[in-house]
């Protein structure tokens, strides 16, 4: 990447400007209602975390360069310019204090999609050199090593070997012409290899042909989180090249929120064309297998449990029904949280916040929101479908000394698979 400067940042802000953003800024009346939808405000009470306030730098660019009156004011020296000091001050609001969860976008009375603007504003912050070290490091590792956590293929190969030895199943690698190519997140490879085993078991039972690519197995996209389209494009492109080389019909996005946003919704726009394959979220695929009778489970989990909706999969991703359809197959005591589904609250670690070490204290503080939701329910288990949410919530639960295990939905289903009788 070339050197970051304020000028590059300003150019990046300008490149983001479009009719939706201009209509949003034109419509804001400073009513402050977005604050009440944001866990960074509700849990800290600090008004600087009001979602629309996090966009002050981008708002200034819009007002001063994209409105007639703003240009007049600038010429008369009546407006405050965007400076390095401003970006430095706002960096912690836009990165540490926002998970891109999109809850604010659901409540704004004039209809502003605030998280959409924050995603775009981050492009300017990166280009100007104002982004957290932790996220810069993750992006660098993703580009140079292939994974934000520095996981290379040999590490995955080792996990594959373990899973194959434990389960007696085979994990197909680089198989051409199969229907599905599965992606994984580094978090799943290192911390939750159960996911891979669950896939192998479910797909065997359902007769799904699939493969993992040794060249592009990483689903996460640090470029999307830090807000660099250049990095995001590079990472998406690896997946596209591998999937088109293996001639698969579908690419499966794993239990990871922003990976889904990256590959499903932003990817085609980053590479500037539609894919030659379709992208499905693992929960969508499992729900399809359920509906067609290919996913057979037995037994019911009778513990009282609830589901945490990962923001990027549910509210921002549109995978609304599958998680609940699937849970009802295997859990008899499933209860929804207050504010469930597309109005659920974020775990506090999305949008790159969990990769940003300096934000840890704040992240644990705002986890109180999830704690409150869980306290109301008195559940024994928390199910989710995002490895990042899972880790963030495990840390949060530990911080608040709550003994609630967090389970991935795919693994939970795999545990209830009808065992095939060996012949």
């Amino acid at each position, binding site marked *: 990447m070339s050197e970051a400067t304020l000028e590059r940042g300003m150019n990046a802000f300008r490149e983001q400007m479009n009719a939706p953003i201009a209509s949003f800024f034109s419509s804001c009346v*400073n*009513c402050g*209602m977005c604050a009440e939808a944001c866990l960074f405000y509700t849990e800290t009470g600090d008004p600087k975390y009001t979602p629309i*306030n996090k966009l002050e730098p981008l708002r200034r660019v819009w007002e001063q360069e994209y409105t*007639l009156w703003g240009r007049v004011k600038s010429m008369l020296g009546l407006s405050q310019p965007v400076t390095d000091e401003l970006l430095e001050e706002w960096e912690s609001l836009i990165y540490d204090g926002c998970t891109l969860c999109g809850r604010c976008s659901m409540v704004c009375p*004039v209809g502003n999609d605030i998280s959409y603007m924050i995603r775009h504003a981050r492009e300017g912050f990166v280009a100007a050199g104002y982004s957290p070290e932790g996220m810069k490091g993750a992006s660098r590792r993703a580009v140079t090593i292939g994974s934000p956590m520095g996981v290379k293929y040999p590490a995955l190969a080792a996990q594959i070997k373990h899973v194959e030895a434990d389960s007696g199943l085979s994990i197909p690698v680089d198989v051409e012409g199969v229907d599905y190519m599965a992606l994984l997140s580094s978090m799943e490879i290192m911390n939750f290899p159960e996911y891979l085993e669950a896939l192998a078991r479910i797909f065997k039972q359902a007769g799904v042909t699939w493969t993992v690519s040794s060249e592009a197995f990483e689903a996460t996209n640090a470029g999307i989180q830090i807000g660099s389209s250049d990095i995001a494009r590079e990472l998406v492109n690896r997946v596209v090249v591998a999937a088109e080389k293996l001639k698969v019909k579908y690419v499966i996005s794993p239990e990871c929120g922003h990976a889904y946003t990256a590959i499903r919704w932003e990817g*085609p*726009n980053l590479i500037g064309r539609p894919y030659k394959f379709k992208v499905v979220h693992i929960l969508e695929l499992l729900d399809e297998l359920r509906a067609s009778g290919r996913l057979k489970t037995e037994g019911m989990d009778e513990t009282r449990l609830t589901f945490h909706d990962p923001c990027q999969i549910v509210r921002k991703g549109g995978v609304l029904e599958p998680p609940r359809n699937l849970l009802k197959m295997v859990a008899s005591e499933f209860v929804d949280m207050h504010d469930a589904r597309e109005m659920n609250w974020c775990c506090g670690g999305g949008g790159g916040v969990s990769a940003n070490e300096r934000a840890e204290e704040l992240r644990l503080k705002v986890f109180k929101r999830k704690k409150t939701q869980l306290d109301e329910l008195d559940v024994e288990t928390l199910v989710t479908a995002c490895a990042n949410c899972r880790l963030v919530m495990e840390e949060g639960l530990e911080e608040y000394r709550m003994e609630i295990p967090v389970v991935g939905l795919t693994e939970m289903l795999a545990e209830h698979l009808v065992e095939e009788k060996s012949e």
Partner: protein
Amino acid sequence: MSTPVDFLLWVRGPGFDIALVVFLIGVVIRLLEVLILGRKPDFAEPRGAELGAGLRTLVTRTLPEQGSFRRSPFTVVGGYIWHIGFFISLFLFIPHIELINATIGLSWPGIASNLVDAVAAVTIVTLVAMLFSRMSHPVKRYLSGPEDYLTWVVTILPMITGYLAYHRMIDPYPLALGLHILSVEILMVVFPFTKLMHAFTFFIARWYNGAMAGRRGVQS
């Protein structure tokens, strides 16, 4: 412009023409400034259609999301009262309808003047309460700048001057009426250059929000 009658004649004549031209040209420029920016084509395969979802959000955002209502009841209820009160005073007061009819030839039934009077009083009180809330609520106070207070002033002035004129509380009457019309002209001139523009652009904002979410299969 030495007498109240001269003043009234000016605000009803050239003054109004100036305000109308600034308002109309200003609003058109502001809308064009938004729309000409356009947006890039979206290559991601849609899960749902944009049009229906966008139109639905345009309507549904008029009602607050449940949790937001619980957390900001004053902003929501106060917002409803003064917006509705303002529109009733503007469009259902019979002298206003007659003026509109004389100007552009459109007419509709109004409501009893004493009822409009009561609505106007409630609207003024609510606007004062909204100002108090803006200055005292931590979030609103933090967000507010000169423009927020300026737009409050130019919004409440026509209400107050109208109320005073109706009750003959300013003497002579031509001066009262002239001040009322002038306050409306100030509102019209300030309108296109401030957040008052939301009265037009919120249609666009809600549509984009609903359309972009609807594309992903979510009703926002």
